[in-house]
C-alpha cells in the first residue's frame, strides 16, 4: 500500500495521518509534513497511525526529527498504532519520547 501523510491543523494541535508503509523511500514525505506542521507552532503533534502498516528505522528517525524540530515542550501523541509498530517503539525505547494512546480525545488535546 502506498504511503501517504496528510496534515491538518486543529486548535493547538497539528495532526498528521499516516497510511501504508513508512520506510526509507517514504520517510521524506513524512518529514516534509513535519516541517510544514512545525511552521504552525503547535502545542501538540498528533500522529494518527491506525492505517500505518509498517515502520522501518527511517520512520523512527523522523520521529526523532519531529521531537527535535518541534522542541521538548511539544507533546507528540501516537494514536492507535498497530501492535508491531507499538512494539518497535517499545523495544527501541522510543515509546518514552511520545504519548502512545489508543484513541484520540480531540477536545482534550486540541484545546489545551
Amino acid at each position, binding site marked *: 500500500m502506498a504511503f501517504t501523510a496528510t496534515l491538518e491543523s486543529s486548535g493547538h494541535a497539528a495532526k498528521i495521518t499516516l497510511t501504508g508503509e513508512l*520506510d*526509507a*523511500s517514504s520517510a521524506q514525505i513524512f518529514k516534509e509534513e513535519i516541517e510544514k506542521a512545525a511552521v504552525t507552532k503547535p502545542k501538540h503533534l498528533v500522529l494518527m497511525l491506525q492505517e500505518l502498516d509498517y515502520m*522501518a*528505522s*527511517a520512520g*523512527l*528517525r523522523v520521529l*526523532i526529527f519531529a*521531537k*527535535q524540530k518541534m522542541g521538548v515542550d511539544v507533546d507528540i501523541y501516537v494514536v492507535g498504532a498497530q501492535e508491531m509498530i507499538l*512494539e*518497535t517503539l*517499545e*523495544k*527501541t*525505547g*522510543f515509546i518514552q*519520547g511520545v504519548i502512545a494512546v489508543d484513541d484520540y480525545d480531540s477536545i482534550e488535546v486540541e484545546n489545551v
Partner: protein
Amino acid sequence: MERIDIHPTHKHGDFKLRVGRPMPFGASLVPGGVNFSVFSSYATSCTLVLFKRHAKEPIAEIPFPDEFRIGNVFTMTVFEIDYENIEYGYRMDGPFNPQEGHYFDKNKILLDPYAKIIGGRDVWGVTPDWNDIYQHRSRISFDDFDWENDRPLEIPPEDQVIYEMHVRSFTRHPSSGVKHPGTFAAIREKISYFKELGVNAIELMPIYEFDEFEHSRPSPITGELLVNYWGYSTVGFFAPKAGYAATGKLGMQVDEVKALVKELHKNGLEVILDVVFNHTAEGDQRGPTISFRGLDNKTYYMLTPEGYYFNFSGCGNTLNCNNPIVRNIVLDCLRYWASEYHIDGFRFDLAAILGRDAWGYPLSNPPLLETLAFDPILAKCKLIAEAWDAGGLYQVGSFPAYGRWAEWNGKYRDNIRKFLKGDGTVGDAAQCLQGSPNLYAHQGRGPATSINFITAHDGFTLADMVSYNDKHNEANGENNNDGCNDNDSWNCGAEGWTDDSGINALRSRQMRNAIAMLMVSQGVPMILMGDEVGRSQNGNNNTYCHDNELNWLDWDLLKTNASLFRFVKNSIAFRNAHPVLRNKYHFQNRDYVGSGYADITWHGTQAWNADWSPSCRTIAFMLCGQHAKAGSVEDNYIYVAINMHWEAQWFEIPGLPEQLRWHISTNTGCASPEDIWEPGTEPKLENQHGILLGDRSIVILVGK
C-alpha cells in the same frame, strides 16, 4: 548551486559514482549517497557487492576504478542508493599463497570490518542458510539516536560495584517474566533489580556480533545443540549482536542498545563492555573466511614464518594488535562505542595479547596499550585488562598500565578462595583486603587498579565453588578436558547437591563469607550474575556452549534463596554506605589526620596483635573512619574479624574513642536475618570488648 563534491563523475550501470573519501573507513552517509572505504595492503583490485536486504543474489557488483584507490585504500561514493535496505560486501582480488600469508579469493564476499550493523544472524538461534553466498552482511547505520542529555556517568572507579552478566542468560529463563526474553530490551525491564541489589555498573559479556553457530554441534550426551553461547569470538567489532536484540529482525539493534544504555544511565548504572580483540571468528587456516583473512590476512593476523597462525588466544588465530593498521581499528572501534553508544568502560579479554609484537613477544612499551591509555575520547572510560593470555603471559601486577589500566585481579581470586577454604595465608589475604598494594602500590597505582572478584563467567559460580571439589564439564562434550583445573574450591563435605543440613549450612556460610570479604576489600568488587541468589551450573566451570538452564538465571531463586539475596544486597549497601571501604589511595599504616588511630590497623584473636604465621586462620582489621578518602570525608570506624578456622574463636575487639560504641553489622555465623543488618539499623554490641566468632565465619562491626 550544486556542490561539486557531490557531483557524480562515473557510472556503473544505473549507479552514479565518484571517488570517495578514504576516511573514515567503512560505509558513511554523505550528501546524496554512501561513501565506502576499505583498506588492503596487498589486494590488486576490489569490487563493491550490493544486495537488497536478505536477497540471495547481489543486485550489483561495482569494481573500484583504478583511480578510486588512494594508497592502500579503495574508496568510492555511490549516489542515490537505498541505504536502509542495502547490504554490502567486498570482493578482493590478489595472491592466494598461504605460505606468504595471503588468502585472497575474489569468489568470496567479505564483511566490512567497520560494518556498524551486521545482518545474517538477525534472530538468535535461527539456523542459517548454509548455501547463502554471503553469511554475515554489512549494513549501513545512522548515528542520530536521540540521547537527550545523556552522557557517561564517570563514577569514580573506587566507588564502583560491577555486576558481570550475559545479555541472553539474564532474562532468557521463563521465570524472568519479561516481554522479550534474552534481549537488550529485556534488560531495561530489570533495571529496578540492579538498583535493589545496589550495583552501579553492569559488565556485559561480549555483545559484538558473533556467530552462535560457530563450531555448533550436538551434545554427545543429550543430543541438544551446543553453540557458541558466550560469544568470545568476534565477527564484527562495530556491530551489536543482532540476535540479542528484540528488534534484530528489523535491523534496529543499534537503537535498542542505545535505549538500554540511556535508561541505565538515567538510573545511575554504568555500562562496561567485555571486548575481544585478541582473535576473531575466522579461526586458523581451517576456519571460515569472513572479513580480515580475505581483506589483508598478513596485516591483521600474527603469522609464523611459514604462514601459519600464531595461537596465543587458544582460539586458532591472534589479531596482530600492535600493527599500526590493527591498532587503528581497535582505537576506532572503542572510540565509536564510547562516543556513539556512550559506553562507560571496557574489559579486554586476554589483554596480555594486546601487548605482544607481531611475532608474539611481549613489548616493554606496547603502542596499543599506550595509545588507548592516552586517547582523548577514551579519557574517562574505564579500561580493564584481563592481564593474561592463553599463550602463558601472566601480567597481573605488571600489566603496562600508563596510569590508566585496571586489572582483573586473578591473584585476589586465588588468594581469597584459598583463605576461604583454609588453605591460604593471612598475609596473602591481608594484601587482598587492602587492594593488593603488594602488586600495585610501588608503581603508584591505586586500589581501584584491582578489580576484585572471587567468581566470574570463567570458572565455578559461587554456589558451585562451595559445592564441588572438581569440575564436571561432561555436558560440553570434551571428555571433561576443558575448563580450569585449579579452582581452589571446596565442596564442604559432599560432591554436588546434598540433603545434609550441616553441609548446606556450611556452604551457605561460605558464600556469605566470600561476599563479605569481597565487599570490605579495597578496590573494585565484581560479582557474577546470579551469585547473589546462589545460581549453580551443576559443577560445570566452563559453560561456554550451553544455551540452556546451565547458563540462564532462574529468577525463582530470588524466592528460594531470599536470605542470600538479602545478605548480598545489604553487604553492597554496607560498602556503599562507608567511604572508608572505597579509598582512592592505598593505606599508609599511620595516623595522618590526628585521630589517634592509623588508617588501618591489624588485629588477631588478641586486639593489636595479629598472628601472621603461615598456619594461622584468623585475622582482623580496623579502619579508622576519619581517614576515609584520605581524610576528606568522615566515616564510621569499621572492624572486620575473619575466622577461617574450623573451630569457634574468641576475638578481643580494639577500643574506640570514648564517645563511640561498636555495633554489629554482619555475623555470618548467625542465621538469617541476624546474619546482616541494614545500614543504620545495626544493634549495639553487648560486650564492647570481645565477640565469639563461630567456625568459618566473619563479623563486621561499625564504630559509631
